[in-house]
């Protein structure tokens, strides 16, 4: 059967047969890098279009419908426009940091791709501390945003960056605790093992209510971490015009924009991996026939389906809710989400020790 797993296997076999192991590894690295960049570009185009279409449908509009059939080339045209635009640098800006910031944000998003399992045995780097790696690297994105806000030498940017700093640092906690519940249940930090542990059912279903709570907490926390509405305080356009990227234009702005969508994809992919079984098909206990049918659907489709479902939910949030105020945002984290997630983690630990999950 033609699957992503077999393609990688054949490629590697062929490379090892042709070249020396070092050379083969180098070539593999280059291929992976190229694939990553392609994935980024495609994801950016698709997600922006998806967001605009979802927003339009919710707002009883049609959305982009002029460029190509149903407007599918709209984002490609937009990208072309952004590439051709001049990338302005303000006179009083810190030029080096100002130009570096979009790339820092982008690089963080790229690093996060490494441990994600896109399909069965299709993973860039199955690092044994995968979840820890994700938590630590994702918190680096705040540096890029702070850098952009500070270097712009614009008051709106500065306020936006400071808000973003406070927000990401706070919400990192509940996101971490939500991830920890799964780590506690699985007993491993490795992504492949977490997926394998969901062989007979996804954690969301077999982990009782505490995992459902953890799932909800995770969705809220990552929405905040990726600066999405209703937590988009860093770029609250009615308050700070565009927040930390007020001064950016052209392709540098596009990189911020792209990074936002890539981050959404990544957090949703991680959410899907931890709670919804990643590429694992829907298996229900001992229904052998049903499980067998589900196995026929390729694992990559399972993964993408789950991820895009979560992305849709986050978009749904954005187009429904008003924005929170900055102090309410921090109240929500420290007074509601953090106590609940601490208590929830305790509960899950008890469940894990007593083995009450299926």
């Amino acid at each position, binding site marked *: 059967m033609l699957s992503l797993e077999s393609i990688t296997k054949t490629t590697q076999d062929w490379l090892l047969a042709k070249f020396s192991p070092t050379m083969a590894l180098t070539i593999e690295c280059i291929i992976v890098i190229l694939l990553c960049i392609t994935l980024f570009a495609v994801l950016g185009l698709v997600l922006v279009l998806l967001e605009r279409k979802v*927003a339009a449908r*919710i*707002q*009883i*509009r049609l959305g982009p419908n002029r460029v190509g059939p149903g407007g599918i080339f709209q984002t490609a045209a937009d990208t072309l426009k952004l590439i051709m635009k001049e990338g302005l640098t303000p006179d*009083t800006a810190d030029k080096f940091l100002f130009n570096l910031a979009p790339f820092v944000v982008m690089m963080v998003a790229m690093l996060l791709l490494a441990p994600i399992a896109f399909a069965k045995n299709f993973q860039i780097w199955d690092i044994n501390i995968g979840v820890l790696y994700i938590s630590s690297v994702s918190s680096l994105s705040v540096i890029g945003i702070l850098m952009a806000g500070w270097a712009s*030498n*614009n*008051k*709106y940017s500065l*306020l936006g960056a400071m*808000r973003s700093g406070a927000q990401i640092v706070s919400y990192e906690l509940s996101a971490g605790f939500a991830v920890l519940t799964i780590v506690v249940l699985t007993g491993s930090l490795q992504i492949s093992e977490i997926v394998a542990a969901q062989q007979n059912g996804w954690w969301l279903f077999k982990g009782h209510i505490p995992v459902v709570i953890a799932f909800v907490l995770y969705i809220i926390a990552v929405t905040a971490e990726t600066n999405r*509405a*209703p937590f*988009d*305080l860093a770029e*609250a*356009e*009615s*308050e*700070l*015009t565009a927040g930390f990227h007020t001064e950016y234009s052209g392709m540098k702005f596009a990189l911020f924009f792209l990074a936002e969508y890539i981050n959404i994809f990544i957090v949703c992919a991680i959410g899907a991996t931890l709670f919804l079984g990643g590429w694992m098909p829907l298996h229900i206990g001992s229904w052998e026939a049903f499980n067998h049918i589900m196995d026929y659907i390729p694992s990559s489709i399972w993964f993408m389906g789950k991820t895009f479902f979560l992305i849709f939910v986050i978009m749904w949030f954005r*187009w*429904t*809710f*008003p*924005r*929170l*105020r*900055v*102090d*309410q945002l921090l109240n929500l984290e420290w007074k509601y989400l953090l106590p609940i997630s601490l208590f929830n983690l305790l509960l899950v630990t008890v469940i894990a020790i007593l083995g009450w999950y299926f």
Partner: protein
Amino acid sequence: MYNQTDIIKDTTDLGPDGELVVNMGPQHPATHGVLHLVVTLNGETIKKIEPHLGYIHRSIEKMCESLTYRQFIYVTSRMDYLSSHINNTACALLVEKGMQIEVPERAKVVRTILNELTRIASHELWIGAMAMDLGAFTPFFYAFREREMITDIMEDTCGARLTMNYIVPGGLMYDIHPEFQTKVKAFIKQFKEKVTEYEDLVTGNIIFQSRTKGVGVLTAADAISYGCSGPVARASGVSCDIRKIAPYDAYDRVEFDEVIETAGDSFARYIVRVKEMNQSIRIIEQLIDNIPEGEFVGKTKNVLKLNKGEFYQRVETARGELGVYIVSEGGTTPHRIKFRSPGFSNLSVLDHIAKNSKIGDLMATMGTLDLVIPDIDR
């Protein structure tokens, strides 16, 4: 206004006590036009707000001094463009008062219905824009869907969607459209169905409530001292509905309640406007089937000349009390005309109620004051 070097200096330097001075506007997504606020911040907390006006100042008062009493009505549509009908009514009423023109009953009733439709349209737009200020985009489109029905009705009858100029001294410019009544009834039906959507999406929403409750509290004493009127004052418990106090047109024969809340915060201002829309629907329902037959415009002379003297006419626009004060020397043009615009007084309260709150609160406060900048600048 600042000159260029001032603005550059402003964005890099700090205020006298190390405070951040931010220019909000004249191009800013939340100032709804060209309002320029110089906001002094301490971190996220607002220390002082100083409005700079005049970016859309057209000196309408001066302009009206050279226009005749028929002509100057159209200019007032451009003041508070969201309640242009009500502005026109105010001017027409004043000229009628000054010349003792009899207005036919039909014209009075139609004017009342159109005024209330305008009020609903204005509040609909306000709900959308207000929700957008707070970060919720979707209610904007739902509100505009209903507003679109009103503008269609206006287009049918008045020939324009925003700046109608349908009201002339003595009555109406032409008779209502034959389908006017059926369309208004269809609108009432749809409005009653869809108004619950705002409850679901906005009013009941926990985030919206926490953003507006207890934010920008205006006490009744302050509302009086700052000369506030309209929903802003009524949300603070000050009864100031001109439609009740000095009824004009057909308001003396319809039943409606003056909506009064006592909390005085942004949420109360929101609730007042939502309830006011329902009261407007109530007024329209009472009148729509009882439009009397007859003339639509009274007998007027070709050239209108106001008697020598001073005249003042108050009406209740969607934003509050609009006063038109005319000093006439007996000629065909006014000697001095003054528009007491509701937005001007309501804006002056902004510094007082938004002080010591967060930037996010400023948006909620400013949104619920319902500022229309051409109305403030005139």
